[in-house]
Structures are given as C-alpha cells and as structure tokens.
C-alpha cells in the first residue's frame, strides 16, 4: 500500500489536496481536502443584507455572478420580494451565459490537458488534421495551413525550452492515447476557446458592467435600466442586437467546436465510461424560473433528486433536508461534531486540528479538510451538470432527452455510461449546448419586452430597511455551473445575523460525515487504476471531471 498525495491539484479553482491509498495498481481509498479558508460567512455578519451579494459574489471569481444571484434570492425570499419579469429574464441570461462560458473554459483550459498531450501535436500531419476536423464539424477554421501554423507555434515553444504553462505536464504518460492529429486539433481549439471566452463574456459586461464580479444585481431586481428610446439606458435596442450577436456566435462555437471535440475525445477514451462513477446519488435544485422563483414546476431545468442511479424515479427536493457535518472538518459545533446542522442553525467556528505545516500527510482518520460535509436526507449527493442533465432526462425534459440520446447514439453508449468521468464531461457539453440556445431565446424575449414597453427591472417596495420585519429568514438557490448552490440568510434588526452557504463543490469535494460516508470525489476515485504513481494523471481526470472550485467550496 502506498499513499499518493496530489497537492496542489491544479487546473481547478482554489486549493485542493487529494490523498489516495494505492493497492495493487488501483486506488483503494481516497480523501479530498480543501486547504484554504477565508471565513466569508463570518465576514458577512452584521452587514446590510442588500449588499450581501456584493460580498458573497467574492466567494468565487471563476463562477462569478452565481453567489451574487443566490444571495439576492436569499434576501428576497426572507423579505418576501417578487422581482419583475425582466429582472428574472436578465438573471437567466446572465446565468445561462455563465454556463456556456464556464463549461467551455473548463473543457479546453482546465480539463483538456488530461486527455491531450500537447507535445504529440508535433507529430501530427496538418493535412490529416484538416480531414479529421472536417469529418467532425463544419467549423470553418480547419485548413491545413491553419493547423500548420498552430503546429509551428507549438514547435517554436518546445524548441525554446521555455514551455510556459505547459512546462510541467505529464507529457508522454502512457494513459494519453489520442492520435497526434486529434492532439493538434485540440491545441488549436484551446487557443480559439481562449478568444471565444473573452469575446463571449461581453454579455456579462453589458448586463453586469464587468466580468468577473458583475455589479448590477439588486435585492428586488437588477440595476440595468431598460428603455427603447434612451441611448444611455443599459438595455436598449442596440444592446439587444449586440447580445443577440454574441449569443448566436456562442451557439455556433458550442455546436461546431465544443460538442464535436468532446465526442471525438470521448470516442478515443471509451474505457473512461466505466470509471469514476462515484455516489450514484444526484441532486438538482432546478433553476431558470419562467415566472416566479417560487414556482419550481416552471423552471427551465427541473428540480429533483435521483438515488442509487435509479433514473425511473425523480424524488422531490425540499431544502429543509439539507444539513452539514463537521465531523471530519476543521470546525467545531457548539453541541458537538457528531450531528449535522441545517444551515438556518449553521455555525462556522473554525478550529484547525491538522498537522502543523509544513506537513507531509493529513490525519485522514480525524479532521482533514476546511470543507464541511453536506448531506441530503443524510445521503451524500453529487451535484453538477451531470445531476442536472440526469434529473432533466429522467423528468422527461424533451430537449435534454433529445440532446442526451443524440450524443449517446453517436458514442454508441447506454444511458448508464453517463455515470462516469466521461459522463460528466459529456453532460457538461450537452448542457452548454442547451443553454447557449436558451441565451438566444431569452435575449429575444427581453428584446420583445423592451419593444412592448415593459421596462420594469426593480421592485423597490422593500428597498427601505424600515419596511422590513424585525426578523426574517430566507433561502436562495441557484444551479451554478458546478451544481446545486444555496445560501441561507437570517436577518435581524436590518442586519445579517447568520449567513450560510452550501456550495456545489462542498457537496462534491466534501470529506466524510459522522457515519464515514465518503463525499463524491472520494467515492469516484475508488478502483481507479493508476499507471504511474509518480504521475497520477488518472486522479486528475476524474477529479477534474467535476470541475472543482475550492474557493467556492470553503468560502
């Protein structure tokens, strides 16, 4: 038995450490630890709930915007505020475009290098790359001269011996088995995706003033004033046209680059349909209200839970059943660390008991992470695009069914193949495709509203804190790119009394609970074969398939 430590796990957001026991060439046990804590829940206390979103948004700059939305929803829930239709629509556009943005960056810049050996691109024949590209997609940038240019750049880089970001990769690892041409294609798209994400996110700049950390939310709506006749209004016909243009470009990019690339890569790594499954429990709060945020039946992505891979039954979800353990986390609960706490009663009392740094290993039998361990009805759950797509699929969401079935057919795989490392990657890509379309639809809808003179973006009835009750509690949720996110706020005397965030990556990367049940990462790593313990590429593959965000997870 040998222990492998991967710290830092890179190409993720934040500070994640994986420790794993190796037994006969495969992982027999694994521990996931978040090694950074800021205490944002504590910093929020005593502040004006109307600005909580500004603070909470800084939980993460990668999935920026999502904590802002969740926070305003929590405060709106506490104060009983319904936001105008337009505000909801704008929030949907921001949220959905965040999916597309985040998923594209994740696949190309955070995950692709687990599957693509950049150095192998040198061996590719540009002409064959052209053939490959044209066989999978109508994307116009596919000439052999184009690929030759890319290859020359890689060559120059390698010859310079200054490999920059690529200097320390696991190049030449036996688990890489894409043909050279696919590697070259992927490198080209790595570069294109960098440009794509930069251009596309201007949707957020228009609607949020800037990205990362958008600055136009309000408790009660949005500060993006709308007017069809005012050139200075944040949303006017000219801006709608601009948004629509960006949205349509994104659809093309996802349809013609992202999706074909994912399918191509997956087809070369079919063994990964059988690895990295994890818990088999999936949770989605559902999101993208079409009308009231209370009307979960009309969410574009449905709410529900799936247990034990059983796609025939989608269970209803009640946020009252969420609770967090700190048995293996560096916190203390006032009444002992054995029982979980619902976030309304949540406590954040940091108490580090780990080894004194610098250290070699964590005490994984005791407390070993800054993440709490959230549970739903005492079950560990996986959250994220895969959960959302499975819940939608199992709930009979027609568009999701068509896309998922289409992809499965192309890969010649069964739905059960989705319970895997590759399943997560595929679900994420499918979701990006779905949401890229929605962005276009919602932008058009917003343009319609503008045209019909519906200009309300904010409900100011409860803006004045004097109109609030002495005490109020609220729950805000959002399906963030990485999964089910919720904030719970307790307001007393116009100030935040308690604030608790239970975040997607807290669900997935959290440690064990009092019963010893593993979190999703820990469970998904079990049985993974490791070819070279010095270069545990396989660990990265599965962990990356969740798109970890540790700043989110710990906050």
């Amino acid at each position: 038995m040998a222990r492998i430590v991967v710290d830092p796990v890179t190409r993720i957001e934040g500070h994640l450490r994986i420790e794993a026991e190796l037994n006969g060439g495969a992982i027999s046990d694994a521990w996931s630890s978040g090694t950074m804590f800021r205490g944002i829940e504590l910093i929020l206390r005593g502040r004006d709930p109307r600005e909580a979103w500004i603070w909470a948004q800084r939980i993460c700059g990668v999935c920026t915007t999502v904590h802002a939305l969740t926070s305003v929803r929590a405060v709106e829930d506490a104060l009983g505020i319904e936001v105008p239709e337009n505000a909801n629509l704008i929030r949907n556009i921001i949220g959905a475009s965040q999916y597309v943005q985040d998923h594209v960056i994740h696949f190309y810049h955070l995950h692709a290098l687990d599957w693509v050996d950049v150095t192998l691109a040198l061996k590719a024949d540009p002409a064959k790359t052209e053939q490959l590209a044209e066989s999978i997609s109508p994307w116009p940038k596919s000439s052999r001269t184009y690929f030759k240019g890319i290859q020359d750049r890689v060559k120059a880089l390698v010859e310079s011996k200054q490999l920059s970001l690529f200097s320390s990769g696991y190049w030449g690892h036996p688990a890489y088995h894409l043909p050279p041409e696919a590697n070259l294609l992927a490198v080209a798209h790595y570069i294109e995706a960098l440009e794509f994400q930069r251009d596309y996110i201007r949707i957020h700049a228009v609607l949020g003033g800037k990205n990362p950390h958008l600055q136009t939310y309000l408790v009660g709506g949005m500060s993006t004033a709308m007017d069809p006749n005012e050139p200075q209004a944040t949303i006017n016909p000219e801006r709608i046209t601009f948004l629509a243009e960006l949205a349509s470009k994104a659809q093309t990019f996802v349809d013609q680059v992202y999706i074909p690339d994912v399918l191509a890569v997956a087809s070369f790594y079919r063994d990964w349909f059988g690895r990295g499954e994890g818990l088999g429990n999936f949770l989605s709060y559902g999101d993208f209200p079409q009308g009231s945020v209370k009307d979960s039946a009309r969410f574009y992505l449905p709410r529900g839970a799936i247990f034990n891979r059983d796609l025939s039954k989608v269970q209803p979800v009640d946020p009252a059943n969420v609770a967090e353990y700190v048995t293996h986390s560096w916190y203390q609960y006032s009444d002992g660390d054995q029982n979980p706490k619902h976030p309304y009663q949540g406590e954040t009392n940091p108490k580090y008991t780990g080894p004194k740094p610098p250290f070699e290993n964590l005490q994984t039998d005791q407390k070993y992470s800054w993440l709490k361990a959230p549970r739903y009805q005492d079950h560990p759950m996986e959250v994220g695009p895969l959960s959302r797509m499975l819940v939608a699929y199992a709930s009979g969401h027609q568009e999701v069914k068509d896309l998922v079935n289409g992809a499965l057919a192309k890969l010649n795989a069964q739905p059960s193949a989705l319970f895997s490392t590759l399943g997560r990657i595929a679900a994420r890509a499918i979701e990006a495709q779905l949401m890229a379309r929605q962005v276009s639809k919602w932008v058009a809808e917003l343009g319609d509203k503008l045209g019909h003179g519906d200009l309300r973006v904010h409900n100011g009835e409860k803006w004045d804190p004097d109109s609030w009750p002495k005490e109020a509690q609220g729950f805000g949720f959002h399906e963030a790119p990485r999964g089910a996110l919720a904030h719970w706020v307790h307001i007393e005397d116009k100030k935040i009394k308690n604030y608790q965030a239970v975040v997607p990556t807290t669900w997935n990367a959290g440690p064990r609970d009092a019963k010893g049940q593993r979190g999703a990462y820990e469970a998904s790593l079990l049985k993974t074969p490791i070819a070279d313990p010095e270069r545990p590429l396989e660990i990265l593959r599965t962990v990356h398939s969740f798109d970890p965000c540790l700043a989110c997870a710990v906050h």
Partner: protein
Amino acid sequence: MFPSNQTFTRALQQKGINRRRFIKFCTAMTATLALPPRYVAQVAAALEKARKPVLVWLQFQDCAGNSESILRSSHPSVLEVVLDLFSWEYHELVMAGAGHQAEAALERVVREEKGKFLAVVEGAVPLADDGVYCTVGGRTALDIARHVCPNAAATIAAGACAWDGGLVRAHPNPTGAVGISEAVPEANVINLGGCPQNPANTAAVLVHYLTFGQLPAMDQYHRPLFAYGRIIHDQCERRAHYDAGRFVQEWGDEGHRKGWCLYKMGCKGPEATFNCPSVRWNDGTSWPVKAGHGCLACASHRFWDVRSPFYERLPQVPGFGADVTAGEIGMGVTAAVAGATIVHGIASAIRDRMRTQPEAVPPQASNQPPKA
C-alpha cells in the same frame, strides 16, 4: 510562442501578425501607460528585443477573479502574455502540471531565475494561527510568499486581497489576513487594486516592465499612477448629470433610464481612484456605472470596510447599528438638544414662577448699595 532568441516582431509575424498591428498594439500600450506618443517607438523597440522573462502567479486566499480577469485580457491577449511575452511557469489555475511537478516548477524558477523573474500574487496571506488557513503542498501561504517574493525582481499584487487583504481582511478578519507587502515587507511590490484588477492595467504594467526594465511610477500605496491617479467621479460619463443635479432616485426610474447620476444610490465614484471610465472592462465594453450600478471604489485602500455600506453616502458611525446612518444620528442629536432645550425652558419658567412667589421672601433687606 517563439524561441527566446527570436525577436518579438518576428514571432508576431510568424503568427501572421503584421507590423501594423504590432505598432497598433504598442500604441495602445503606450496610451494605457499614459506615456506621450513619442514613446511608441521605445515600447516597440523594447518588445522587439525582449527575451521572455519568467513569471510565476501565486494564489493564496483568493477567489481567482484576478486570474479570470487576466484570461479576458485583449491587448495583449492572454495568449500573447502567457506564451509570447513571458514564460508563465507557474499558475495553479491554468498550468499543466500538478502536485510535485507543479511544486518543482516553482522551485526551479526561484532557484534558477533568482532576482530576474516576476511574481504575481493573487489573494491575501493569513497570519493567524501560524498560517494554517491557507496551505499549498503542505506549506503555508506565508512560507511560500517569503520564499518566492523576495527572490523576484518585482512582485505584482493583483487585486484588493493581495494588496491590502481585501475582502478576506474585512472585519472581523477571521484568519488574520494581510496583503503581500505586509506579509513580505522585503519584496518589491506594485499594488494593482481592484476587485478584481483590470487586465488592461496589469498588461500595461507588464509591458512597462518589459520596455523599461522597471516598474512604472507609483503613488503612496505603490499603485501605478497611470491607472490610479484620477478620481472616477472626474472621468465619469454621468458627471454632467451630477453637476446639473440630475440624480437617480429609485432604481429603474426615469432618471435611471436616462443615465443620470447614481450619487444618491450610493455611488462611491467621488471617493474612488481608478481608470474604469476610460479603459472600461472586457475589451472596453462597459463598466459598473455605465451598466447602472454605483461604483464601490473597489480600487481604494481597504475599500470593503471603509467604502461600505455601499448604498449609503458615508461609512457607518463606529459604535452604532448597521442601519443607522450618520445623518440619522446627527438629526437625532439635534432633535434631542432641541427637545432638552424646550424642556429646560419650561423648567426655567417654572423655577421663575416659584421664585417669585411674593410670600416666599421677606419684603426688605435688599436694595443695599454695593459693599465694595
């Protein structure tokens, strides 16, 4: 992406970027740096000569917002920065290597590039409880910062957290977080305030460094003057409305739709220095005030505590509740004094009355000439 012995122009040409675009890029950089146009040639010459200096990007108590921000850089693009202008050897968010290999990459830079490489720091450094609130590879952030930053030619603190502790350091600062220059006083630091910093400015600082081999002129907070020398309010496109007294009164009202001034909605533009109104964000697309929300003064020192509450003009008066404004306290004090005065006036009148009860005092004894 070019060998280090090749010139920048040739590399750009190899990428299909012609001289004209290169000069355009240099002109844009010169403008961002607030240098007179005659410097374009010097910027161009410096970039043409440039070999790739090594850069490492450290993340501590951060949210990666500054990393994401640099991914959105357009002039130069992140690709140009990461691959062509620098050799970007360490950056957890995007680097290929992980674990031991990543740590080794950083070690190599500190060892072999001592005094020559640039370090960028993102996020605060926790000092409380021996730094256990942030470890990477089992070492504390403080340990790593002390190891890397003093050995760098310069350290760029990217964003509020790295500058002054940012949000992490806001009250009650649960982890004892500080900015990098407080954590490692011996480092040569330039602070790029902002939450996050604006990639246009970061790129400009990097190009300045490439061009002149040193950091640009800085203010008392070690922020580059070209970006932090002017008040937002003085550059704001809504300023004419401010001067005219045209203010947004309620979110979404007529004034809001017409782009009036956000002063009454808590805009901190009057107490914020930054160049948002001129460089804007995301390729010059917009900036918060343009999009309809007040500025938070996110590039000001300790802005989280001293510029909040963000929907009020002034900070909270220490010792009062979160929802009590200075105006309310002032009015309260004034009213209390007025009330007390009225009560006192009535009481005085009563005293008067009591003192003048004719029977109360014997009717002579007074009216003596003064003793002196």
